[in-house]
């Protein structure tokens, strides 16, 4: 039951009204990525009354996110973005059904996750995820709302909307990591994701409700420096509308994830030189089994034990599965921004499978 007063500014809006409001309430929108783009999309769709919001992210809040990811507070640093976002969206609108996916969207889970939703919002920060989303949406016949940033610029479009063109009709091949700088090496003006994310939210509402004209077959190119907007039209390349399965490999270039080192590379490196390895598991776990030469500082005591770490040397954080070490990374790098810190991805579990 929607309280009539809550959405009165929309239900009294000529051209919107109760009918469109009901469509919002019935809709299911998936937001992939809870960073600069995903947060305004989530906040506004949640405010406006979208019935079901899916949230996908496995990243932790870091200090340098706060410059543009405005839902996060200083207290949230080191917490899972998914947890913080779902908690704040719940407080904002308790009527929304939130579906949380504590993972990144990958070729292995994309079809399973995407199929539950009516509209997908691409709020990711890397090409691999964008091409996975495109292909999954084409396979499952879902429209997706694209937004992406570069410095003072942004792009918005709606791909695969009804018979409209896809991301690959515009950009057929995924760029290699070398040819295009990723967001970690290139800056973003903090307000840009706010502008592009809100435009994505509007296109999502237009798809759901049918008001206005959906930005399909048009790429909106926004230049914040000159406050210029241009719309480039493009058409379907028929072969791109026929995708039957995801590729076996999309590469990997998550920008916002912590500098992590694979278990394999870590072991290889360790053979060549003595590394400063901090094991952030509990004392019990550590005592049962640990890597020779590693030092145990539990995740809980990390903040108060900085003096035990030599920040003039590289720091390698280790745990059982790679989750706590990633979180520990976020905390350390916030407190010691100049330090060089790695999280060993997959942790001891992964190491066991690498090194039998």
């Amino acid at each position: 039951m929607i309280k009539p007063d809550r959405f009165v500014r929309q239900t009294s809006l000529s051209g919107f009204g109760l009918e469109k409001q009901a469509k919002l309430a019935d809709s299911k929108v998936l937001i992939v990525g809870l960073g600069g783009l995903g947060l305004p999309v989530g906040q506004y769709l949640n405010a406006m009354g979208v019935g079901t919001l899916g949230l996908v992210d496995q990243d932790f809040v870091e200090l340098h996110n706060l410059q543009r990811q405005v839902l996060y507070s200083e207290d949230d640093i080191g917490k899972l973005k998914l947890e913080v976002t779902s908690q704040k969206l719940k407080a904002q609108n308790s009527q929304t059904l939130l579906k949380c996916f504590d993972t990144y969207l990958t070729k292995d889970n994309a079809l399973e996750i995407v199929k539950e939703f009516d509209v997908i919002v691409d709020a990711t920060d890397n090409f691999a995820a964008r091409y996975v989303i495109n292909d999954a949406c084409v396979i499952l016949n879902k429209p997706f709302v694209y937004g992406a940033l570069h410095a003072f610029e942004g792009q918005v479009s709606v791909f695969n909307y009804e018979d409209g063109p896809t991301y690959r009709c515009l950009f057929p091949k995924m760029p290699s990591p070398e040819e295009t700088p990723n967001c970690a090496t290139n800056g973003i003006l903090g307000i840009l994701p706010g502008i592009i994310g809100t435009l994505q939210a509007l296109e999502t509402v237009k798809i759901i409700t049918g008001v206005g004209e959906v930005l399909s077959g048009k790429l909106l190119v926004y230049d914040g420096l000159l406050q210029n907007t241009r719309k480039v039209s493009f058409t379907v390349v028929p072969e791109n509308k026929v995708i039957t399965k995801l590729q076996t490999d999309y590469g990997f270039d998550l920008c916002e994830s912590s500098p992590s080192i694979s278990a394999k590379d870590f072991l290889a490196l360790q053979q060549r030189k003595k590394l400063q390895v901090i094991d952030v598991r509990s004392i019990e776990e550590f005592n049962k089994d640990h890597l020779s030469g590693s030092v145990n500082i539990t995740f809980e005591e990390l903040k108060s034990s900085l003096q035990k770490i030599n920040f003039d040397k590289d720091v390698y954080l280790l745990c059982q599965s790679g989750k706590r070490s990633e979180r520990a990374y976020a905390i350390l790098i916030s407190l010691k921004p100049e330090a060089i810190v790695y999280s060993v991805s997959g942790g001891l579990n992964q190491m066991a499978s690498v090194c039998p």
Partner: protein
Amino acid sequence: MTILLFGVTKDIVGSPSLSIPTASVTGRSIPKTVRELRSFLNKSYPELGKLSSLAIAVNNSYAQDDEQINSYDEIALIPPVSGG
């Protein structure tokens, strides 16, 4: 012929737009199609040639390689961008 630059193409060229001579004072050939423009750009800026997906818009429409261009057209180089 003025070409507007977006995304990484702006960084590669180091400016928001690029002028291409429309009359052959140097004896070099003048691009008359999008394909010739691509080849012209790749010679002048090899980094542009490395971009696997670079959309070229002529008068705000995505242009195929065999589309003709002339000095009155508004041309824009639009690469995919990835930030979020």
